């Protein structure tokens, strides 16, 4: 276990020295915040205009409104808030997916390409330990990304006075699970083909191509249930049980992908 953590630590260190990755993470977070700010500002402008109209006419609009209209207005405002959160989630999720694809697809393949793997595997490190260490290193970086994205949304909602949608408390975790699934598939594919091609296939393969009625859904990855963008917009509530089931699905999938990756890697020639 110690060796796995040592490899994972080395992997994190390598990733933190990767300028492209850092740039990708920063751009992803900045873009997320930027788009959410625009959305938040638009929503604030609408609210302000509404308040201004109310003051100019000196006749409180609310007093003229029927109860139904008020309800509709509240719903519209809530929908605006959901839109902001939804876009924040979508942007950070998409950025995170790119980061995950980059991290996991290059974790082993770049070491093979550069030849640094030779020295590591000439030490008493088994290929399984190496692979798990590399995956764990990626998990640590993705966890840090998920924590930063979660903190960003909390800060953003506090500063914009946007009440968080109920599903948002699970969204970062589901996003994290989705990215780990994506990463495990990208890592597996990178052991068979060029990492870039592996990334494209991993991204396309499970992006809502299959429905639960299709038997392939149970064999091939499906990231669709982990994408809660629509639920955020609709203000749906996700039950704890569903989150547990999704988490189990993700872990099950990740374990399968890692076993396949190990099966491939244990006989892969690293020269």
């Amino acid at each position: 276990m110690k060796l796995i953590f040592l490899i994972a630590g080395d992997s994190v260190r390598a990733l933190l020295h990767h300028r492209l990755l850092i740039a990708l993470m920063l751009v992803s977070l900045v873009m997320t915040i930027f788009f959410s700010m625009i959305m938040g500002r638009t929503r604030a402008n609408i609210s302000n205009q509404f308040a201004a109209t109310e003051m100019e006419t000196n006749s409180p609009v609310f007093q003229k409104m029927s109860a139904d209209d008020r309800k509709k207005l509240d719903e519209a405002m809530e929908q605006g808030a959901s839109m902001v959160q939804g876009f924040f989630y979508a942007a950070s999720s998409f950025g995170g997916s790119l980061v995950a694809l980059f991290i996991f697809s290059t974790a082993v393949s770049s070491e093979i390409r550069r030849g640094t793997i030779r020295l590591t595997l000439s030490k008493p490190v088994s290929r399984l330990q190496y692979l798990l260490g590399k995956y764990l290193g990626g998990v640590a970086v993705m966890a840090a990304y998920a924590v930063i994205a979660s903190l960003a949304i909390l800060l953003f909602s506090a500063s914009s006075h946007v009440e968080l949608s109920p599903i948002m408390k699970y969204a970062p975790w589901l996003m994290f699970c989705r990215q780990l699934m994506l990463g495990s598939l990208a890592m597996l594919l990178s052991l068979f083909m060029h990492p870039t091609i592996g990334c494209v296939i991993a991204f396309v393969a499970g992006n809502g191509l299959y429905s639960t009625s299709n038997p392939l859904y149970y064999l091939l990855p499906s990231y669709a249930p982990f994408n809660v963008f629509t639920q955020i917009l609709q203000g749906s509530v996700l039950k704890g049980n569903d989150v547990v089931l999704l988490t189990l699905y993700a872990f099950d999938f990740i374990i399968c992908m890692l076993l396949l990756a190990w099966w491939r890697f244990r006989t892969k020639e690293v020269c």
Partner: protein
Amino acid sequence: MAAIYTENLTKSFVRFFGGQPETNALKGLNLEVKEGETFGFLGPNGAGKTTTILLLLGLIRPSSGTARLFDQPVGDCRVHRRLGYLPESVNLHDYYTGRGLLEFYAALLGVPSQTRQARIDELLCLLRLEAAAAKSVSKYSKGMLQRLGFAQALLHDPDLLILDEPTASLDPVGRKEFRDILLELKRRGKTIFISSHILSELESVCDRVAILEQGELKRVGSLQELSTGKSTRLVLRQVPGAVLEALSRSPAEVTMLNGQVTVKCVDLAMRDMIDELLRQHGLQPEASAVETQSLENIFLASIGKPPKL
């Protein structure tokens, strides 16, 4: 127990599409390196030296045959505790400092944390890297990378060192220091398997050498065995004209200088024939010497190139 043992070790690199063998990098290599031996592995570029080393490390898989290190299959990573490896082109993680990299590898090798720093200091000093220890590996020169690579191979004081072209990037001073370290390790009974193009280096440290060409083992033996040629040089004085005439008619190479006749016999059959001729005329050679060859000439002869004069 053999430190390295290979039996009929073969490696063919196969094309991904079609499955046709593309290159037979190694053809049925049988090799045994005893514990405590310093073994030189020679061969021109593309002979299969690095392929053999990669097979010994379990980094690539043999097409057929077996390889064992200390009687353990090469795929068993536990045997790597007894192994130090320096690759031909030293690619190191450049996001560490020199010391940081050694700390990482020492931890992987299970060097106890109590002795780790002392061992790293000792190696940095031995390989003249103390001043660069805190520098990022990305700023190291080729020679420094080679020395740092050698340091990581020595971290756990391994029983077996596998060195692939270890002095390729070193200057003459570095080579001399490297040779001294090898001699010290040899004195301490370590097994050293060294692949190199620099034959003079191998000559000074190796007990035995193997010569590989196009994946085939051409010769293997101690330097004495290999360098002892089959040709003999006989020195004769006061040779009668008739004998001289008979000698000049023989296939032997005859030279005369200041009344001294030197006869060079290239093989044992020729030597027997000359001995018989001299006996018939009641002559005894004044001196006879078996000619020895330099490692370079042995190497060149083994791979079918004319030896240097």
